[in-house]
């Protein structure tokens, strides 16, 4: 009885001959092959396009990439123009960014992961950090213009630009610190508590030590992003033509350290590139390509280091 019912149901579906089934399988296998080829082609195409663009840029800028280019100030004549003030500006701004964003970001990440109670308040802070990571960078520029330049009267200076990029980098550092800390097993913490360590001792001597690699990865990625960022620096008022260097941080007379450079006007590498790019003459476009090549190489090296570091950590550490 049961068997006949099943047979009946089967007979409702049109029976397939062996040949039909084979054709169907062939068709499915063909789809498999077609998609796999399309996928491979797409990825190759996308990566190749980007490679061509980079090679084109480096080739365009190659004639300018010599020692002179790094030691010359910008000039009205394209042949004499260099990026001295730009790379010095970038370096000093990155210093300010590093000093402000890193301690704060790591501290915030540690708090959210180790201390924060699980309640609505922590949820709000969390959503906030995720959202901040997605806010367009130019909005940070507007914040800095309204807050640092016109409310705190810091002026259009290196310290303003450094703080602006610090704000931009903060969410990146927080997120990577949290991810690094989260991968440390609870057993490590429990072992430390068991021998009488306080919370802070556990955090300082164990949690931060073991997650250091992951935190460093986030810091490098954040710094690379800060280095290449243009829009927020434009809004806080970078100058596009600067033929002087900020005052040196080290002086010959006591107290040997000077902070005057913080108050100096500035330009940075991407701004210099942007300003050359917006000129109509072709000669300046070559300068822009050379500056672009410098920026690309710097950011690729930084990001590459970070990714390699993360890969090594994942490979070596097995809890």
């Amino acid at each position, binding site marked *: 009885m049961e068997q006949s019912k099943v047979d009946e149901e089967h007979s409702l579906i049109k029976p397939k001959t062996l040949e039909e089934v084979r054709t169907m399988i062939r068709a*499915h296998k063909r*789809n*498999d092959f077609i*998609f*796999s080829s399309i*996928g491979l082609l797409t*990825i190759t195409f*996308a*990566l190749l396009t*980007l490679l061509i663009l980079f090679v*084109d*840029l480096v080739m365009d800028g190659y004639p300018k990439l010599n020692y002179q280019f790094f030691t010359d100030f910008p000039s009205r004549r394209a042949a004499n123009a260099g990026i001295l003030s730009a790379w010095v500006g970038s370096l000093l701004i990155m210093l300010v960014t590093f000093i402000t964003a890193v301690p*704060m*970001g790591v*501290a*915030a990440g540690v*708090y959210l992961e180790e*201390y*924060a109670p699980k309640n609505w308040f922590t949820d*709000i*802070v969390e*959503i*906030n*950090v*995720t*959202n*901040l990571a*997605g*806010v*367009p960078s*130019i*909005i940070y*520029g*507007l*914040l800095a213009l*309204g*807050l640092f330049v016109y409310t705190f009267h810091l002026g259009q200076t290196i310290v303003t630009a450094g703080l602006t990029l610090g*704000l931009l980098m*903060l969410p990146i550092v927080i997120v990577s610190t949290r991810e690094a800390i989260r991968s440390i097993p609870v057993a490590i913490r429990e072992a430390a508590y068991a021998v009488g360590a*306080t*919370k*802070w001792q556990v955090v300082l001597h164990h949690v931060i030590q073991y997650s250091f690699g992951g935190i460093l990865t986030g810091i490098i*990625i954040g710094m690379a*992003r800060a280095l*290449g960022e*243009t*829009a927020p620096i*434009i809004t806080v*008022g970078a100058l596009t033509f600067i033929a002087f260097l900020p005052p040196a941080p080290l002086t010959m007379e006591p107290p040997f350290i000077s902070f005057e450079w913080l108050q100096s006007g500035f330009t940075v590498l*991407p701004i210099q590139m*942007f300003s050359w*790019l*917006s000129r109509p003459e072709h000669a300046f*476009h070559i300068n*822009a390509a050379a500056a672009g090549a410098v*920026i690309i190489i710097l*950011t*690729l090296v*930084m990001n590459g280091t970070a*990714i390699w570091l993360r890969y090594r950590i994942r490979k070596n550490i097995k809890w």
Partner: protein
Amino acid sequence: MATTQLLKDPPISKRLAKNIKRNFIERVIEIILMFAALAATFITIGIVYILVTEASGFFKEVSIIEFLTSRQWSPLFEDAHYGILPLISGTLTTSFVALSIAIPIGTIAAIYLSEFASHKTRESVKPVLELLVGVPTVVFGYFALLFVTPLLQKINPDLPTFNMLGPGIVMGVMIIPYIASVAEDAMRAVPMHMREGSYAMGATKFQTAIRVVTPAATSGIIAAYILGISRAVGETMVVAIAAGQQPTFTFNPLEGAATITAYIVQVAMGDLPHGSLGYQSIFAAGMVLFVITFVFNILGHMARKRFAERY
């Protein structure tokens, strides 16, 4: 042993004193760390505060109705008009061009990497994608202005130097690695046994990818799209360099038009006095941009969280 150790220890009162000091330091450190975490919240509050206060000066002079409905944006001219629509149309058009390239290619790349590629291919392509996400956008502006647009002009000689197609395409290429990377993560997170179940039923890789893995990873893939949209809308340098500075109410990518971000850059490059209407107008434009990306970011965050919870 243990008893002699105990006898050598300092008297109980001293140990308690040390404990009190220790607990006090612990509290102080916790409070310092908490303030660091609060700083992140202060940034958001700061953004909203600055945008609202500066834009409120703008809206005292300009009615919101004109701002949202007028089709002309010329705050810096004698005959000033304050309609945000041309800037929004520019933003939407460039984003649309970018996403119509980035979403299909990014999705195909993600499916291929997650379901078809060998372990070795995936492990070598994934870091390259991450590397490409970090390339500064000003460099992509160079590509749009001096590589892609001249190339397009060979196909269509009528194309102006500043147009929305070239930067749109470059932005699309720029966003591909981002979408591919996030979508691939989502598809990887689908548990292996679901694929194995599908294979056991005789499904091919393609059938499994399309009918099992992709539906299971939908919210993660949507999160990748939404974050991609948010990036395209907020992208500044590519459009500021290559899409032109003229606010035009058009959806034709072959024309040049300013986006919200390009307008902000244009004004910031010039030296407008603090407090003038032109200066306040960039905060009004910025507020519109912030609201748009904020909505997309929250949606993306919610979609991402949903897919994280499911498995």
